[in-house]
């Protein structure tokens, strides 16, 4: 490798020897047909390759550390907000968890209340009481049903939002890993600034 570098240096030094005229034997001239992706000169071409190689290094790390949409959705299905907590989206996870606990708890409360009214309705003997308990039982049951519906919507939303939360997490992860990689290339020491290529 060292030998190759020396040869390249020698070639660069002896570049004028290779040409009778200033632009003769210009290796970039053959790139005129390859202007795609802005690679109209070898510098851009090589830089692009170098960038891709570096980004692939980051990608390998990212691929190992990224979170699965499926796993997070499963978590949110099992326990509301779990998927959000996994993606470090704690506030949203807490809100969604709280909302679902509230809706489920309320639904259960109204269902229990409707059962009470229903029992009283069955045991009542006066027509007014019978009517009133029936109305109350129905009302509580309806409320409970609405709350269950809302809870299902909240649960569904939570599961679906987990996909976006995971997506955001993975994007942020990429940026973090990319920044770390670039920062590791440039390190400030007591002896000065060091750049790793």
């Amino acid at each position, binding site marked *: 490798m060292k*030998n*190759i570098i020396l*040869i*390249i240096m*020698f*070639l660069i030094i*002896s570049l004028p*020897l*290779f*040409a*009778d005229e200033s632009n*003769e*034997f*210009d*290796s970039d*001239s*053959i*790139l005129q*047909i*390859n202007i*795609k*992706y802005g*690679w109209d000169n*070898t510098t851009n*071409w*090589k830089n*692009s*390759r170098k960038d*891709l190689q570096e*980004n*692939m290094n*980051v*990608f390998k790390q*990212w*691929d190992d550390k*990224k979170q699965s*949409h*499926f796993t997070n*959705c499963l978590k949110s*299905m099992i326990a509301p907000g779990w998927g959000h907590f996994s993606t470090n989206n704690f506030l949203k996870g807490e809100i969604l968890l709280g909302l679902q606990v509230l809706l489920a708890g309320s639904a259960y409360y109204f269902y229990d209340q409707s059962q009470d009214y229903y029992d009283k309705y069955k045991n009542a003997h006066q027509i007014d009481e019978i009517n009133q308990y029936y109305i109350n039982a129905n009302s509580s049951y309806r409320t409970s049903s609405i709350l269950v519906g809302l809870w299902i919507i909240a649960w*569904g939303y939570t*599961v*679906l939002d987990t*996909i976006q939360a995971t*997506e955001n997490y*993975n*994007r942020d992860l*990429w*940026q973090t890993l*990319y920044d770390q990689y670039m920062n590791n290339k440039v390190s400030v020491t007591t002896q000065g600034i060091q750049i790793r290529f």
Partner: protein
Amino acid sequence: MGFFLLSCTNLPYKKSVKTLKEGKYSQAVQKLDAYIETSKHPAYKEKAKELRSQAYYQLGLHEYEMAKYPEASEYFFLANSLKADSLLDNCYFEISQTALDDLDYLKASDYLSFIIFHLPESEKMPEVLYNEIIIQTNYSKDIHAAYATYHILQNRFQTSDAFSQATIIVDSFMPLLIDEAQAQWDNKLYAETLDKLFLYLDYPADFVKEIKEMIGNVYYTWAVSLLQNSELDNVQTYLLNAEEYNPKLANQVNDKLTELASIYIATGDNFLFERDIDNAILSYQKTLSIIENYQLAYDKIARTEEFTRRIAQAAQLVEAGDVQFSNEEYVAAYDSYSEAYKFDSIPQIYDKITLAYIWTRISTDPEQYAIEIVKRYQDGIIPDTIDDIETSAQKNFSRQDIRITPWQVFRTVTRNSYEVRYTIVIPDKNYFLRWLVRLETGEVVPLNEVTEELLPS
């Protein structure tokens, strides 16, 4: 629903990957291009670029297998990967080969240059360099560039067939390069000539002997030229180099080395004359590195060291004399200075001797010294003139008429200044001769008109 949405995540990317896996590379490139253009997902965007590179590689490989090198090269170029490079160089080489066959040297050179500069690890490099040499020799007519390329070929691929073939080409123009060096030599551009010759010396053929002899000769003429201009610093090195590269010059080199040694001896003598002892010894020692056990140099060095010792002794005595002088021990100081003068006869010590003598006389018998100064004044002009006056008086007058009062000395108010008188009284004229004598400087000043007229200062 959730799983449906889940499967829709990064759908264009997934579709592109699927297309690639199905071997539809052109479509995959288009889809990946579109995805890269529009995607906001940085990670998959980069991965898509890598997949696009793979797709281009496969497209290039397809063309390459059908020997469609220009098309394949475009795909490999767009693949922009090390893997693609391993075939890109082959494509460019084949294209350049075709261009060479069509005598399109410029195009051929463009492609070859690309390989040399941008694909340095190409396994085709020996052939590439060989073709470049052909172009540089036949088209550019630049044999220097061809030789530079040949050097690379030699350094990296000495065992290759391309190197053997290139040697035949270089053989044909090597005499021209040597002639160019000869022309520079004729113009006395020695350093430039040697630079070239040393470069050509790496050439592994019969010319080595010829080049070595030429290097020896250039060194020799350079050394002689420097010797003539008295620029001695590098002469010995160049002479030794001359003999190393051309042993036939041994006798001439020896003569010149002897001449150089003589010059150093003469230079040392000059330094010694100027009392520059260090440089004198340095100069003598230089001859020892030229001629081993050179007796003359040893003698000169020994003499210089003895001289140094004597100077040091004289300096010590002068120092002692100075102390004595400042203590007004003028006789002792005079002796010390005189002894010092025996070791180092320089005017400065002589002056000190004179000064010590003056002060010895001043301190012991100043009056007598004052008379001596007057008598010695201008080689004794005063006593001679007095004699003349007395002789003339004796001719014209009787002895009784002439009255002479010989040398009288009187102290003056000025320190170490005395008045010296000599009186001649004759009938027609009286000579009251008076001088002021300053003992420290030996100055004699007439004190009256008669004295001044008679003996102008």
